[in-house]
């Protein structure tokens, strides 16, 4: 399966809304996970678990240490899925 970045973003937005009750209007590509959306490292682990069925692949926890914004997460997911297509 190959998802565009837009699809990934929409999936992520739904997930954030369901899991953390975040107003979808606040979830923009530029929004920072920690500072703007109040997602801490404990939440990040939850998010990784919930992202797995969506992407079909497990994002390594290290990735979350280097991402800051929603766009970063989308990019990380996208390159992860690209790798699996290429492989």
């Amino acid at each position, binding site marked *: 399966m190959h998802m565009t970045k837009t699809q990934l973003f929409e999936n992520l937005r739904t997930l954030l809304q*369901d*899991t*953390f*009750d975040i107003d979808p209007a606040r979830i923009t590509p530029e929004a920072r996970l920690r500072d703007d959306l109040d997602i*801490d*490292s*404990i*939440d*990040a*682990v*939850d998010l990784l678990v919930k992202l797995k069925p969506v992407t079909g692949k497990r994002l390594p926890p290290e990735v979350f240490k280097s991402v800051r914004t929603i766009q970063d997460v989308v990019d990380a997911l996208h390159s992860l899925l690209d790798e699996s297509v290429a492989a």
Partner: protein
Amino acid sequence: MLERLERGWRVIATGISFATFGVGGLALRLLFFPLLSLLVRDRPRRTRLARLAVHHSFRFFVGLMHFLGCLDYRVEGVEKLARPGLLILANHPTLIDVVFLISLVPNADCVVKASLANNPFMRGPIEATGYLCNDSGPELVEACIASVKAGNNLIIFPEGTRTPLSGPMKLQRGAANIAVRGPCDITPVTIQVAPMALTKGMPWWRVAPTRMKFNIVVQDDIRVSSLVEEAHGEALAARHLTERLHDYFSTETQRHAGA
């Protein structure tokens, strides 16, 4: 004149108390704990004894501060702490809150600021007691839950640091995450202090105008199981519980304030 003399004495007495605290910490590290590890090979037993030693040291310290006239205190509901496996959450007005709480709990575990493990006066006790260090998020939550399940009474300040003198109280979500994911019911302890001293950003020698009075109340447990069922998922339950704890501690610590 007499008042100024009394106030001056409290600066000296507080200094004596803290110096004693430092010397005590060093003595535990250099004498007591090495002896303990020689005599007691069994590690869980050694940890238990080390925690008991810290408990008694802190009881002595609180007694000393009271004896020297630095502070008065009143504790209510202490019998509720005589149960194993508690998650004890408290507000955090002063530097010595944890000393008070550990003086009331013989089998206390607590989360220590990682940098304190490098402090020469505190390193010994922190290593020997196996207190948890706060340098990791999700792993720390797991470790805290394991500690409570093992029967320790885990003391946590949900604010993560001392309450600022001005502005609202702000809670981290870690404590609520422990409660929700355990799940562990919460034993709240409210600490009221008047007049205020030893707060964040205030040096220890700036003593209060009159002797500090600590009013420590062990409250009834807060059950968390229903909360987890109501919320959709643990992350949301932890958010709701954090809000509830915020309201709880803000209200309870304001009650009869100054009385």
